């Protein structure tokens, strides 16, 4: 029942979003004075950090969470989906088929472009960290959502929204491992996080020049606020549940804007 409601809500949200885009597009053109129907490209780049240090995934460089546990990192992957650019007047551009797997180990995945973005000035970026509920109940998918990407639970259907692996001396798990596989798309353990990033300056989209948005993604946020994670007691999360929920509520703070060009 709950699942169905969630699905219905997701569907309605998506539908309303599409409707609003269509309705608003012509107005956008008028408002910002750019040519009607003109479209541009927005490049989005993600850089991973641990606090203010660039993240190195060499399994050797040590970082420290806010609980005081030091750790190394061997994997960092997560989905961002349903990207929406928002103008000051509230009109929006929603990227169609918007699913991106960000993987620190694959440089190509750290930047992607939104195409056919109506010209104008945008001051917010909305995105979902994870894969929306609807795609979790829609059968075999492809592209970023292909289960070959190793971000899918085969025994209990659903996408792993985010994965971090590494080691910590504080971890009580065998091999001192850290294993955070965060998933769950419905009911009390839904980990989906919708984030709205306020841009420090307008993102100006025009036909002439590619606009770009640089995001910082801070791994330390995963273990910091509102739940301070103690690696001695939480080090191996491999299914949906309250632990995954805590990590997800923490990592909803991971993004910040470095620059808008």
């Amino acid at each position, binding site marked *: 029942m709950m699942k169905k409601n969630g699905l219905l809500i997701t569907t309605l949200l998506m539908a309303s979003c599409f409707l609003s885009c269509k309705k608003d597009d012509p107005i956008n053109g008028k408002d910002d004075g750019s040519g009607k129907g003109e479209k541009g490209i927005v490049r989005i780049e993600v850089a991973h950090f641990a606090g203010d240090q660039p993240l190195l995934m060499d399994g050797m460089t040590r970082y420290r969470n806010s609980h005081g546990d030091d750790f190394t990192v061997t994997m960092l992957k997560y989905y961002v989906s349903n990207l929406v650019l928002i103008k000051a007047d509230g009109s929006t551009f929603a990227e169609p088929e918007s699913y991106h797997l960000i993987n620190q180990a694959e440089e190509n995945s750290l930047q992607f472009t939104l195409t056919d973005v109506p010209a104008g000035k945008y001051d917010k970026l909305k995105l979902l960290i994870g894969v929306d509920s609807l795609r979790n109940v829609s*059968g*075999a998918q492809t592209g970023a959502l*292909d289960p*070959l990407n190793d971000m899918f639970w*085969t*025994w*209990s*259907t659903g996408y792993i929204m985010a994965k971090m692996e590494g080691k910590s001396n504080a971890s009580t798990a065998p091999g001192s491992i850290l294993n955070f596989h965060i998933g769950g798309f419905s009911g009390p353990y839904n980990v989906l996080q919708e984030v709205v990033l306020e841009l420090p300056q307008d993102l100006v989209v025009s036909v002439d020049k590619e606009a770009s948005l640089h995001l910082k993604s801070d791994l330390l946020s995963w273990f910091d606020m509102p739940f301070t994670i103690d690696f001695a007691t939480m080090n191996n999360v491999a299914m949906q*549940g*309250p632990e995954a929920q805590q990590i997800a509520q923490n990592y909803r703070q991971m993004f910040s804007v470095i620059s808008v060009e």
Partner: protein
Amino acid sequence: MRADTLRILLSVLTMSSVLWYGCRKDDPPAIQKGENYTFQVPAHFPEPVYRFEQNPVSEAGFTLGRRLFFDPIMSRDQTISCGSCHQPFAAFSQFGHNVSHGVKDRLGVRNSPGLFNLNWHTSFFWDGGVNHIENQPANPITNPLEMDETLEGIVGKLRSSAEYPQLFQQAFGDTLISTQRIFRSLAQFMGLMVSADAKYDKVARGAAGVAFTEVEQSGLNVFREKCVQCHTEPLFSDFSFRNNGLALLPNTQGEVDLGRGVIEPNDSGSYYRFKVPSLRNLKYTQPYMHDGRFTTIDEVLDHYSNGIHVTLNLDPLLQTGLSLSTAEKSALKAFLETLNDETFVKDPRFQEPQ
């Protein structure tokens, strides 16, 4: 591709009824031209959950799915196929095995269920862990106790095989082999496995000259009084998760199976519940229960009449067991016989390709 599909659909639609009867009479071992590859909802069935919305069925797609289903290439050491634990003559269960055997004869933890009328299922596996028919195959493929293979491994083997690229081209328009295409062709094969031609169905659709005998009819009456609350007609399951009062015995891994609790470990209300199985085709799908602990229907009926164990989440309908007299049990067994669908288990479309 769409035009091809349409053409196939149209030709099948025009010829289907005539040839459908022809095939059944002849029982040829291989697929004949013009056989029925459309999904038809039997008149007395409810609306299905899955209607191939994004996966239009074609003869080539179905045939590819059938080929994959029976091909041991799907397991790590190429020793077992889907069909090893889902045998056509056993209504796609594994006849006589309490639990399934995977690669290297590793023992699984649960009884391999019959496969039919899957398009009506709201979830898959005894614990309902999988929510879509297209996602179903990934589970046994990657389970170390079953096929112990990776999705990369399968895609790689299929891509480098001599025949598969061409079969994918016929099914999907080009030679690309992807997990989505593998899963969708398997869904075409398994989704067309509709079992709706048992005596019960013939009576339901008013087939000429078919009627329940007196004992079958009285079995149906008992069934509708005492069993139908969970084994809803005409699919004979409501697909809910229930604890039916089995003793909590250790499984082949030495643990008590939590059933639905494996999927929802944080909710103790889900513990010891298993998906209600259909009662169709029991003749072919023995043994019974999630771990195959009962070999005969008599044992099953004895369990419900005087073997219920009161454990956490025992279904409210079974708190005091079902009172079943000897005569009622005999009548029930006679009725359950009318749910065996020989047409289905012998359907040439679903047999292992030669």
